């Protein structure tokens, strides 16, 4: 059965908490693996940075007590803005645009979410000045944005559309192992990074995975076993 363009594109009311909670769990679990990647092809602090972000997130959630999608995603944004380094402010800006997908008290629909992801990609590139292929988080995000837009235009249901986006992100993140870094601390280690996936791209794969989990009816798990 193919879906018509009139398919229901609304996303669950609890998208915010569902997304943020799923991602929180996934990042906490993946922190050691992500740190390991940054040690092998970077300056080794990304695992700590993820952990700091998650600590900040817990504090933000406690103090802000968010009630809607925007509030929950804003908490994630502030959590990363409190990290420093390169990935902190870039993820922070990314989530800030993601939070803007919906007005107060609402959750976005699929189209608004896709646009917000695209805006998030743009802001990362604006400040980070990385192009696709530079071996950064952008490499995972860009194909996910394309996949999501295409799936949405093809009238796919949200869960299916996000599953496609997640697959695109994971594949691209895997592909960063063959790229040479031109941005961030990893750029100093040059060719020796070959064969090692970019940790920021992997984290971005988890982000899209958490979105998928948040819109799925049965609320599955974020896949992370591909990160190693």
């Amino acid at each position: 059965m193919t879906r018509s363009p009139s398919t229901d594109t609304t996303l669950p009311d609890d998208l915010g908490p569902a997304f943020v909670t799923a991602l929180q769990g996934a990042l906490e679990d993946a922190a050691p693996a992500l740190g390991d990647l940054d040690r092998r092809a970077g300056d080794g602090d990304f695992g700590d940075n993820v952990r700091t972000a998650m600590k900040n997130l817990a504090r933000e959630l406690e103090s802000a007590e968010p009630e809607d999608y925007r509030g929950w995603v804003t908490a994630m944004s502030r959590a990363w803005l409190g990290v420093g380094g390169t990935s902190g402010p870039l993820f922070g800006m990314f989530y800030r645009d993601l939070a803007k997908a919906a007005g107060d008290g609402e959750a976005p629909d699929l189209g608004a979410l896709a646009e917000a992801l695209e805006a998030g990609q743009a802001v990362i590139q604006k400040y980070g000045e990385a192009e696709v292929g530079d071996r950064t988080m952008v490499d995972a995000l860009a194909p996910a944005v394309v996949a999501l837009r295409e799936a949405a235009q093809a009238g796919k249901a949200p869960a299916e559309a996000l599953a496609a986006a997640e697959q695109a992100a994971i594949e691209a993140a895997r592909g960063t192992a063959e790229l040479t870094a031109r941005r961030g601390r990893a750029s100093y280690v040059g060719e020796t990074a070959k064969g090692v996936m970019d940790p920021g791209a992997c984290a971005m794969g988890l982000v899209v995975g958490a979105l998928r989990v948040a819109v799925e009816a049965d609320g599955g798990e974020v896949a992370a076993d591909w990160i190693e």
Partner: protein
Amino acid sequence: MRRSIVNDPDQLVPEALEGFVLSHPGRLALDAEHRFVRRAEPARDKVGLVSGGGSGHEPLHAGFVGPGMLDVAVAGAVFASPTALQVLEATKAADSGRGVVQIVKNYTGDVLNFRIAGEISGDDEVETEIVLVDDDLATDTADGGGPGRRGTAATVIVEKICGAAAEEGQDLAAVADLGRRVAASARTMSLALAAGTHPGDEEPQFSLGDDEVELGVGIHGERAARRVPFTTADGLTDLLLDPLLEELDLSRGDELLAIVNGLGGTYPLELNLVARRLHRRLADAGMSVGRSLVGSYVTSLDMHGVSLTLMPLDAELTRLWDAPVATPALSW
């Protein structure tokens, strides 16, 4: 080996900030969560000035908070940028309704976190302008590619000049323009005889041979591109002065602002020898040191070395430099 006076190295910055602010009661206040120091009595109805960056460069930046200079200084860990969120909160704290100039040393992390904080501060309706300080002549690349020149001791001049302009009521654009003018015209050269040691570490950041001098060092213990032979105080001064004079394109009669800056482990007797040579050489060239600072203002932990900053003066810059200032590290 150097042992440090430290408790838990991870808590060094917050503990040091606490001690610093306790030592200036009634004049400074601390936001412990976001690790910024602000004036105890926030200024009203003036352009705000916020600066900051990694720690380890004391008295920069918190030492320059006070009337006539900064409103707020925000501190990262040793040699690491503060986070965007810290900068955001610091920027908001510096605002009294007329916008905020952010003074940022040109390092990738600092620039990113300050730019982003500036962007976000719009959510809170704070207008911001960034002034990038990039005075380090040793990192000047002809093609302008890469991250550009690093920011070092000229930061003090930018903070002082912008501070005076803000205090006399100039608007956001004017204060930022002045800062950019200073940054564009000031240049610095630095050298080290010995690297500094991170608190908690036992070994310095690099080591040199007995007859080597690291020429063109920055303020984070990075090694420089050149190692040159060790020589006298006069000779060392010339190593800094010659490239500066070549770069700055000065003429007889020019008056300069100079900062002879110790990098942390240099004692005043040594700095005064550098100052002496500087004065003599400029006088010989028909120029003069119109204003100067000689001391340890922008340090790299306890690095044993010296930087020399020169900037041509005009009547406006001189007036703003001379304007009153009342901060822990600069006051007249």
